[in-house]
């Protein structure tokens, strides 16, 4: 054996070991990373050129916007009023915000959509650039709601209570509605966008003709880019049709950065200081910047499911199917001949009065919520150091999220409450492995 031959042999061996340790199930859209960066990868199938564009978008997503005027012209235009000065403040490491976990002045990841409060626009902005006053001071408190599983095991849910002070342009009238929203993990949104609309619509059963108690429906929303009405897919209530529109809406609404889809600053009358503030160009994020951001978002890979052939996974999956979770959390679709596993039907469902609130963007009812995808949720605690779920982060983990289900989800929730401890644990473990 010559040294040269040995080297080739050893390289092959190293390759074989690496391959053996990497099951070839990741496919072109998913990654095996289980670390804090599990949500931050491009599709493994991207080219060198695509990888570069992905990183430009990453820079736009991660780095802070600064006040105008600045010599860093690409990145100026923060505010005048805002919730955060980066995308990553609310989607840290492309993950999920902690929402209402923090008491007092809320974490940046929690924002408030509003309806019928003249002078504030569509969303409250408690932060602002210097010289422009912030709109309001929100405050978070918690109430604990006790409950019992059927086997007598007690649990306690955490219900956030929101109060507001220092309304700068007048207190809200009685008809107003304030809806908290947390930033979700942004993995796989490019895949959700590619699920054919007819496959989503085929799952809808608005009149519950099959009488299974589940009556998901779709809504149609305006695509600002094309001027067409099309299927709503993104946002907590399917109010946005595309990743681009969702991202552009967040740019202007959350960071105060105008862009081709939303060219107007969020400075409704009578916010004079806001209207008179120096802006960072018209628009502040141009077509190229928006396109890079969208490229980034739509090429973010999803983590593979953890060990889907294990006995544990299969046991949990049985419970998931049996108690009816899969009625809305549709496990799988095909994209380009590859299976993806988002566990959502992308439909709006009545989730009961407890969670009901309002969103101006679309025409969903207060009780309706779009089934959120479940992929990656078991890694949120690794990426974001918390396990908070639902639209304002009130649920501390999967079990509490299930226990908050009402409306069409009530039957599945009651089935969950009636499970044995063993089966509850199996279900939670299963969901956390998706």
């Amino acid at each position, binding site marked *: 054996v010559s040294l040269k031959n040995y080297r080739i042999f050893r390289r092959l061996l190293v390759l074989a070991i690496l391959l053996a340790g990497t099951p070839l199930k990741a496919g072109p859209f998913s990654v095996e*990373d289980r670390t804090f*960066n599990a949500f931050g990868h491009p599709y493994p199938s991207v080219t060198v050129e695509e990888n*570069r564009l992905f990183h430009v978008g990453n820079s736009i997503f991660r780095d802070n916007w600064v006040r105008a005027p600045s010599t860093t012209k690409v990145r100026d235009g923060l505010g005048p009023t805002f919730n*955060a000065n980066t995308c990553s403040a*609310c989607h840290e490491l492309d993950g999920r915000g902690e929402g209402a976990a923090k008491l007092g002045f809320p974490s940046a990841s929690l924002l408030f959509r509003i309806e019928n409060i003249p002078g504030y626009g569509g969303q409250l902005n408690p932060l602002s650039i210097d010289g422009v006053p912030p709109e309001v001071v929100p405050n978070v408190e918690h109430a604990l709601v006790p409950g019992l599983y059927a086997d007598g095991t007690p649990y306690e849910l955490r219900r956030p209570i929101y109060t507001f002070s220092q309304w700068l342009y007048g207190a809200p009238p009685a008809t107003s509605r304030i809806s908290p929203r947390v930033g979700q993990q942004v993995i796989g949104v490019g895949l959700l966008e590619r699920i054919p609309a007819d496959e989503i619509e085929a799952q809808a059963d608005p009149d519950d003709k099959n009488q299974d108690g589940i009556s998901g429906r779709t809504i149609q929303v305006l695509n600002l880019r094309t001027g067409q009405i099309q299927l709503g897919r993104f946002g907590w209530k399917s109010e946005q049709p595309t990743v681009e529109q969702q991202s552009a809406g967040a740019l202007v609404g959350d960071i105060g950065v105008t862009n081709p889809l939303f060219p107007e600053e969020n400075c409704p009358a009578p916010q004079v200081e806001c209207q008179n503030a120096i802006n960072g160009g018209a628009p502040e994020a141009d077509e190229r910047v928006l396109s890079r951001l969208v490229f980034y978002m739509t090429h973010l890979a999803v983590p593979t499911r953890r060990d889907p052939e294990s006995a544990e996974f299969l046991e949990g999956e049985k419970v998931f199917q049996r108690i009816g979770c899969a009625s809305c959390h549709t496990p799988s679709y095909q994209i380009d001949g590859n299976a993806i596993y988002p566990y959502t039907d992308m439909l709006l469902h009545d989730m009961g009065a407890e969670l009901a609130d309002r969103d101006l963007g679309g025409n969903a009812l207060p009780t309706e919520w779009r089934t959120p995808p479940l992929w990656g949720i078991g890694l949120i605690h690794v990426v974001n150091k918390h396990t908070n779920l639902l639209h304002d982060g009130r649920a501390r983990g999967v079990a509490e999220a299930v226990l908050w289900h009402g409306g069409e989800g009530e039957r599945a929730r009651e089935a969950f409450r009636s499970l044995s401890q063993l089966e509850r644990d199996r279900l939670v473990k299963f969901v956390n492995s998706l």
Partner: protein
Amino acid sequence: MKWLVVLILPLAAQAASANTHDAIIAYSKTAYAKYGEALMDAQMLKSAIDQFIADPTEANLIVARSAWLTSRASYSPTEVYRLYGGPIDGENGPEGALNSWPLDEAYIDYVDGDANAGFIQHPDRLPTIAAGPLRDLNEKDGEKNIATGYHAIEFMLWGQDLYADSAGRRPATDYTTAPFADRRKAYLSVLADMIVADLQFVTDAWNPQNPNSYYQTFTNPAREQESLKNILTGVANLSGFELSQERMFTPLDNMSQEDEHSCFSDNTHNDFIYDVKGMANVLRGGIIDLVRETDEDVALELEEALAKAEKAMAAIPVPFDQAITENSPGRPFVMKGVESLEALSEATKQAAVVLGLEIPKPE
């Protein structure tokens, strides 16, 4: 006999444990030395700033600027010790306070188009200019108001670079007759104190004499594979991500004159050169030798990729802000730099495979 050992232990990285340990020791001692140099130059910068504040003349401003450039040249080579959660950017690491970017100019002081901007000129926004309040502002929840570190000092020494043919031209009178001159002095002085303190923290962490330092953890033989992985991760991600993508391709794509890290001083090209110098310190300081023991070809590829990157950095036209603008003849040179660093990252990952390691990608 050697032949037998090689056959028995197919993963040669394990066979070469003594050499791995030596390479890790060499790396750690170099880290200590390089942070020591950065600290010393930061202290020199602090002295030059003190002198300027005591006597704010144009001449002393030039001396302070020159001290900043020197301090940058010794800080940049330490960037290779980033990106794996070591002392500089681990849980309590000061990287964000030292080197954050982009700086929020209008948050700090007057800017072109807003003569009245910034907390310098609005004492109500920041009544006390001191390290504590500035640290709080720098990474407040939901807001990263970048207002500390090298680039903040750079802004206070040069001002905005509004010119094609020079760096920023902040006049010394900003520190004498201009309104709020005293607050500018106070801010500049605190900024210099802060980088000295932060570099002291990192230098202490790498001190081999300190029995409780990170150095001891990092060089612990039980942690050998992890430390080796960290070393290669720093090189692979600094070249393949931070430098090539974040700092070179992104401005190339944005085509915006000041979308560069050392924008006020027009010193970005040196950041590249000295960052690669830091990578060379690591790779030629024992890593390439270690790889050569198990795979001469891969070691050679790594050496060649490093040499190409060094050459490509030196060829990037100065100033960088003019090289990235639309239709600039400098763009192909910057692109070559991007490609050379991507190749260096790939060669480093290949070396990691040879050593039986897998390199995690950066955030």
